[in-house]
């Protein structure tokens, strides 16, 4: 019994979305399926050697079977994130020619995170969730809800540019993604928080506030890693905002 369980488990690696994946191996249904031709142990193991390394837990619950609120408030290892992000930066660095390109790549990585994250956050707000229509509303959603969901703290400041009507600034005194990163002197314009800027950009774009977001280092005595996220809205956003006021 033990053996056939592991065999069918191995076998299931190739059919991750088949109806049996959600059922436990010891249920009658799975036993019925186990009577179907299963590869012998040797072929199974040789196959699993060449198969993808995707793994499923013993209960065969994938991430899609879990409740979306399950990870709400959960914390992840910062070290594993730091290593993953470090590899992302190195990978991107090998494929670009300049610092601007590198920031663009990191921004694009963040963008795909932001698109998915927005959907999750709005879903989690439940009945109180709504579509933001005003600039201030969406920026507060970003500095509070979004920042708390990812970094477990609100952003340190939200400011409006005095010189430019379309520019807003969010500051973070110590961006989480930059904790362990020291940028070499010859690349000092680079700020890896471009990834974070990408997340903000995606959220704004997806909420119909098209904007460009860039990350800039503004170190000071107490906060050597202080970063300002400069948000530049497109004209349509300003036009709509003006209509709201009038």
């Amino acid at each position, binding site marked *: 019994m033990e053996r056939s369980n592991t065999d069918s488990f191995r076998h299931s690696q190739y059919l991750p979305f088949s109806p049996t994946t959600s059922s436990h191996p010891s249920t009658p249904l799975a036993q019925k399926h186990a009577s179907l031709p299963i590869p012998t142990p040797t072929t199974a193991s040789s196959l699993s050697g060449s198969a993808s390394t995707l793994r499923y837990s013993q209960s065969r619950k994938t991430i899609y079977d879990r409740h979306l609120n399950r990870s709400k408030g959960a914390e992840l290892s910062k070290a594993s994130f730091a290593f993953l992000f470090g590899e992302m930066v190195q990978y991107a660095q090998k494929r670009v020619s300049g610092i601007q390109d590198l920031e663009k790549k990191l921004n694009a990585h963040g963008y795909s995170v932001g698109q998915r994250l927005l959907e999750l956050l709005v879903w989690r707000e439940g009945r109180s969730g709504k579509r933001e229509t005003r600039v201030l509303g969406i920026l507060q959603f970003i500095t509070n809800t979004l920042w708390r969901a990812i970094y477990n703290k609100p952003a340190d400041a939200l400011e409006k540019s005095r010189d430019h009507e379309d520019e807003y600034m969010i500051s973070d005194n110590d961006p989480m993604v930059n904790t362990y*990163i*020291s940028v070499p002197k010859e690349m000092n314009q680079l700020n890896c928080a471009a990834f974070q800027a990408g997340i903000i950009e995606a959220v704004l774009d997806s909420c119909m506030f098209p904007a460009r977001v860039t990350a800039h280092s503004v170190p000071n005595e107490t906060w050597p890693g202080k970063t300002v996220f400069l948000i530049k809205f497109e004209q349509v956003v300003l036009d709509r905002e003006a209509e709201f006021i009038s």
Partner: protein
Amino acid sequence: MILSLLILNKAGGLVYHRDFSNTFTKLSSNDYLVLAGTFHGVHAITARLSPFGPSSGGTPSSGLEVMESEHFRMQCFQTLTGTKFLLFTEPQQPNVDVILRRIYELYADYVMKNPFYQIEMPIRCEAFDRHLMAYIKPKQ
């Protein structure tokens, strides 16, 4: 009083050097490289010299750990990967091993997790310098 920190890569090359006190004359940068290389060799010899080696049924010696003189104490901490941390302190400095472990921790965080650091190469990580100084300063 903590005097100086040296970090050696596994080939015996000096990858980091920092003095915490200005009271002593400094060596030239070439002399520091020689010092690191010499220590690497001596360390390898001491590991072999130990009478309680594998041949007598014991565990292999980890080599030279502490050297004490009237004026200073030198403690060596070797990581599992062969990187060596050398800390020079005054002879009466307490808890040197604790300090070395903390420095190793800072190294693991701010050097090894930095995507711009190339392994086995000289350490130029501003965040590591900053956190190291913040840790050592209050102890002086």
